[in-house]
């Protein structure tokens, strides 16, 4: 895991992190509108039974997104 860039998709349930940026310009516009802003804290809440999608807390509310979407949100180490 060390080499892999850390993203919201690699977080564990209960973990919190700070959003660093995005790896996909197209989705990032939508993600930012939904409150996933660089510098904002994000908490990984839980996964759906098959591991996808996931539920995170951001901007004070609960957002569900797919793993592939979460993987485009990089987090600070």
């Amino acid at each position, binding site marked *: 895991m060390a080499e892999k860039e850390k993203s919201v998709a690699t977080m564990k349930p209960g973990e919190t992190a700070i959003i660093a940026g995005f790896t996909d*310009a*197209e*989705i*990032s*516009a*939508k*993600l*930012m*509108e*939904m*409150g996933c*802003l*660089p510098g904002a804290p994000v908490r990984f*809440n*839980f996964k*759906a*039974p*098959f*591991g*996808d*999608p996931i*539920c995170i807390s951001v*901007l*004070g*509310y*609960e*957002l*569900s*997104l*797919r793993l592939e*979407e979460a993987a485009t949100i990089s987090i600070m180490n």
Partner: protein
Amino acid sequence: MSSAKPTKVALIGNPNSGKSSLFNYLTGLNQKVGNFPGVTVDKKVGRTQLPGIGETEIIDLPGIYSIYPRSLDERIVAESLLDRNSPTAPTKVVVVVDATNIKRGLLLLTQIVDIGLPTVLALNMMDLAAKAGVSYDFLMLSQKLGVTVVPINARKGQGIDALKKEIAQAEVSRMQPIFPVWPEAKAAVKQLRDEFQLINDYQAYQFLEQPQSLHFLSKDKQNLVESVRTTHQYFPGKFQGAETIQRYGFIQDLLNEAILKQPDYAWKNFSHKLDRVLTHKVAGYAIFFAVLFLVFQSVFAWASYPMDFIDGLFADFSSWLSNTLPDGALTRLLAEGIIPGLGGIVMFVPQIAILFALVAVLEETGYMARVVFLMDKVMRKFGLNGKSVVPLMSGVACAIPAIMAARTIDNWKERTITIMVTPLMSCSARIPIFTILIALIVPETKVLGFFNLQGVALMSLYLLGFVAALASAWVMKKLINVKERSYLMMELPTYRLPKGTNVGLTLVEKTKSFVLEAGKVILAISVVLWVLASYGPGDKLKNAEAYVMQETANMRLTEQGLQDRIAAYKLENSYAGVIGKAIEPAIKPLGYDWKIGIALITSFAAREVFVGTMATIYSIGSAGEEDQNTIKSRMQQEINPETGEPRFTMAVGLSLLVFYTFAMQCMSTIAVVYRETKGWKWPLIQLAYMSALAYFSALLVYQVLK
């Protein structure tokens, strides 16, 4: 008020912001659902009294997150705000923001404020905000945003009078935009503003940024924007994220001053605990299936009483008509065509009403979002989306409202596939066919001690429809080759109790749209079918009475029996009968004769007609559809002249069951798919693939079992 245009107020807000509650509170039953021109997004319009203005139109726009559209819903809002020349354009805006989730709501608000319409901010769910311990400096918010802020609780109706007063008085007070357009865009914006006569820079900036989303722009204007972009070397798109960051920066600064007390999220603890159970890998699915079971159980158990009642009512009315009115073609059209056709629509209202009440409850509580969350991964494997669950579930009652429910799916391909496979879910119109055929071929015995074998058979048919829906979806996923990214990104709202009036109004609205949508088509079709079944080539029909009387002269038939014979003879020699006989070679490999062929023809437009046609063709028309035992025993006696054995063998029965599980046989669904996909391509493909599936499956079943 001496403004030239009458005041029109648009309600705008995020999904789950309580916008619909506010709309319902403002307008009550005084609302109707229409369509935005050219698209199928519902437009809810109502009326309310505003102080000093009087009766005013209120438009409930779809819930959105931003005016940069990514779904059809979002595009509609962007268009209605930016198309200032449209006669339906709102003149004032109320932005509804969830006070417990203020930042994301304010993002939308700041965009709308910059468009420059008189705006009021309705800060909703103040009760929950109080519970969360958050408190705001409303005066500060008002001043910094340049709009009046009214705290409300739309569910309880608190703050509504103050809101109405502020809407009536709302004017544009903010002179500086919250987001000034980028220096790079200034020159291009200036040019567009002059060309299009726009009132401010941000409107022009929207035209510059996303002309492709604004469908009201003519081709010339689109080209104009394109040339302005080229002249000024302005390439849109890359600034969108930066604008969002700048707006959130403004909001953060504002809230640093305007939030007097930070929220404490402890009030959400219950919701979080509930999520642990409801999205658990075992308990979550178990509860979901239990909910599904309960929903279907109540739809079928509760709806049967009012359905029987309505059915009887229409039958009585129709026989009363034919006895009262002078005999003639018009009376018969009314009594045998139109009234039974109307009855066929109204009869399904109870089931649809109950189903949609329950779906509305599940949506209001926030549980439906969890169902989407649970099912998304599984559904995607089949080219569907977690949001396809609602249409598929609703399809068990009726495909028409179910197909309309697919609008929430943003991705075109997933939405189309959902629409294409939903009619494979066994709708309530199939039940009469299923029950009579099952009664005919499946013995009423118990398996494993307590399962009724007939019940198991019925259950299997539902399962068969569901499996076929998934399998077809999977095939279409492979066939439709469209590169469009699919998103989920959906809020999981905090759980809460459903509100009765919201559920009630949703129910009324959905039922109304079913009756109107299906009604038009079914009515038209029932007239056509009546003509087909009542008239025929040559003069056989005219002489039917004399012929049958002569035929049966020494059979000592009762008057009733004679009339039934005549009816059967007429049907046999009508156009429907002629077609039924003509298709016999094609359906013979399926095990059907021309009599079944007639039923296939008459039920082509609406499958529920099958049973009634069977009754008429077997000369027991007067027994009525309700008298299933009569029909059943008559069908049991029917002999296949070629084999000398009963016509309805296990093979024929199963073949028919499979046929009706898969066949389209519903003109109203075709009409709705046409409307929802805006063209004949998809409804025709759907009709073709479902008919082929039905025909070949039935063929296979019969050939293997015979």
